[in-house]
């Protein structure tokens, strides 16, 4: 038991952990006002443990960020007896559910740190982080994410999902291609709401200097995946099925960019010795499909996307002059003047834009948060082109386009290295 963790966890939580004792499996559930969805999710988790791990000692740990809707009570109040009759299954060990309030406002970094510290104290062999918003969760998800760790010695298992071709556009147009090109591993969901990991890797990450680096734990899930790559831990992927669709408002794009783009740009500085030496990319061991796509028709206001791109390029010229090279800016200004039909934000220009943003972020040419915010209108322009290119495309054609973008990121990697010097 480490002194740092002793002071970091509350006395009440430590008492609960001592009562639980050593366990084999921990399921971490970070929450904040999730009363509407958390009950069925805890039921499913319990059912998954009964089905997949009836002989193992397991605990569900809820790290709550100051819920006011009684979420923690719902987590600890769900009885396993409700699960047993339906599934006709019996656990041979007691299944505990405990809860702690880590702060009065949500912070994903602190929640993960709490669960990692608990996992280390309880000497858990395999751990799982679950999202309280994953309404499409199935009991099998637990086995799919935990079994490779518990039985096969994997250290991190990330999920892959069946998604609509126009869902997760930041992942398909930025996160997946860039992490793949720079770190050399084709992890589809490097920033996932649910993932499994070994106690060994959890302890390693707990000692990393990511908790007090000024980012307040923003995007820590992505840093977690990148730490597994740079630490040469064994990483796998597991196909879970359809990912639920949660509507997001326009205001949420910038916070999402901070959590993903900001976290990746921030990690690039520390990981330079690793990613600068990587060439090409490999597919990690994957159970099931590494992706699946839904092609249902979807109505999207594409015009607004292009307008916001054009407005952004015009209004933020002075900001872009500090971030982008004159040739990239000139090209963006040229395409910003094009109409809906002629508009095209090519993959090469998008990659150059992203790499120049990454280099400017490293050099802090202006406030780093402002650099991240400035990427939002350009991302909208890229999304517009992606939607136009793939509006009538089949799943294979969409996948080919994504693969083309990934290869462009890999091809232009020397450009980033050149900018980095």
């Amino acid at each position: 038991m480490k002194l740092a963790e002793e002071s970091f966890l509350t006395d009440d939580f430590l008492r609960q952990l001592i009562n639980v004792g050593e366990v084999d499996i921990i399921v971490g559930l970070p929450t904040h006002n999730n009363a509407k969805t958390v009950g069925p999710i805890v039921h499913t988790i319990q059912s998954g443990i009964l089905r997949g791990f009836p002989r193992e000692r397991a605990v569900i740990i809820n790290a709550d960020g100051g819920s006011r809707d009684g979420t923690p009570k719902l987590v600890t109040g769900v009885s396993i007896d409700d699960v047993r009759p339906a599934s006709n299954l019996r656990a041979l060990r007691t299944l505990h559910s405990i809860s702690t309030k880590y702060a009065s406002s949500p912070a994903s970094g602190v929640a993960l740190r709490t669960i990692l510290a608990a996992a280390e104290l309880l000497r858990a062999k395999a751990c799982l982080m679950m999202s309280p918003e994953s309404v499409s969760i199935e009991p099998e998800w637990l086995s799919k994410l935990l079994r490779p760790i518990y039985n096969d010695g994997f250290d991190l298992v990330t999920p892959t999902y069946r998604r609509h071709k126009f869902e997760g556009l930041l992942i398909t147009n930025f996160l997946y291609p860039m992490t793949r090109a720079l770190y050399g591993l084709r992890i589809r969901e490097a920033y996932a709401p649910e993932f499994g990991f070994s106690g060994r890797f959890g302890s390693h990450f707990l000692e990393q200097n990511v908790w007090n680096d000024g980012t307040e734990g923003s995007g820590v899930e992505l840093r977690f995946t990148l730490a597994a790559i740079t630490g040469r831990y064994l990483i796998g992927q597991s196909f879970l099925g359809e990912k639920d669709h949660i509507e997001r408002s326009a205001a949420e794009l910038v916070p999402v960019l901070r959590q993903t783009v900001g976290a990746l740009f921030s990690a690039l500085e520390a990981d330079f010795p690793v990613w600068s030496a990587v060439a090409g990319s490999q597919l990690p061991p994957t159970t099931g499909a590494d992706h699946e796509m839904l092609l249902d028709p979807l109505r999207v206001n594409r015009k607004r996307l292009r307008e916001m791109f054009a407005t952004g390029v015009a209004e933020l010229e002075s900001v872009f002059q500090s971030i982008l090279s004159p040739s990239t800016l000139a090209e963006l200004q040229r395409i910003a003047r094009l109409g809906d039909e002629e508009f095209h934000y090519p993959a090469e220009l998008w990659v150059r834009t992203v790499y120049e943003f990454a280099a400017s972020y490293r050099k802090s040419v202006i406030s780093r948060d402002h650099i991240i915010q400035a990427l939002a209108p350009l991302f909208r322009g890229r999304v517009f082109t992606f939607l136009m290119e793939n509006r009538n495309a089949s799943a294979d054609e969409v996948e080919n386009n994504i693969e083309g973008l990934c290869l462009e990121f890999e091809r232009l990697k020397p450009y980033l290295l050149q900018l980095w010097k």
Partner: protein
Amino acid sequence: MREMIISELSQALHEIARDFAHFLPRLIVMLILVLAGWAIAYAVKAILRSILRLIKFDKLSENAGASQLLAKAALPSATEVLSRFVFWVTLVGFILLGVRALGILGLQEQIAKFFVFLPRLFVAIFILFFGLLAASFFSRAALLAAVNANVPSPRVLSLALRTIIIVFVLSIVFEELGLAEQTMLVAFGIAFGALMLGLAIAFGMGGRDLARRFLERKFVRGKKEENEDELSPL
């Protein structure tokens, strides 16, 4: 008569020689102070220049918008300007100390005033620099927020915020320097009031449609406007 003249002349020459003998050490002290001051000022300039380069002061100045002002005035970089300024202030300080050592009565008071004014000058420069930095930072933050929220005329909003902050900073700087305090106070009041009135009229006139659309969206139940974020970015 002749002897008297010779005696007076001799006495006058003696007095001059005595005064000069009294003055000469002071002059030497002054020259030593000026020379030492030059050496110290030069050393201070070199050290300051190294520190400013180390902390990337030019980049900070660029962010503050000060570099652009300097470039327009055909002046060197902010690091160079500040180091040269500190060199001359230090050298002038030592020259004045030297002059004070000469013991010329009329100059004493003026020199004392200069040394009292010096800290205020530094504080004013400090306020001006960080004020410009704050104006640049907050106006850019407003510009980015407005663009990402799709607010009409984001540059006007950003410029208005920048102007307000700069006017406010300048009024503090002039007050700190003690220059025409009353005039500055009145001028600031008029400028600030005019600016606020202008903004109120501009927002009132220009924002009618915006306010109507906002109220319609808020209270009139109709078809939900579709937007790109119905597509989850993650």
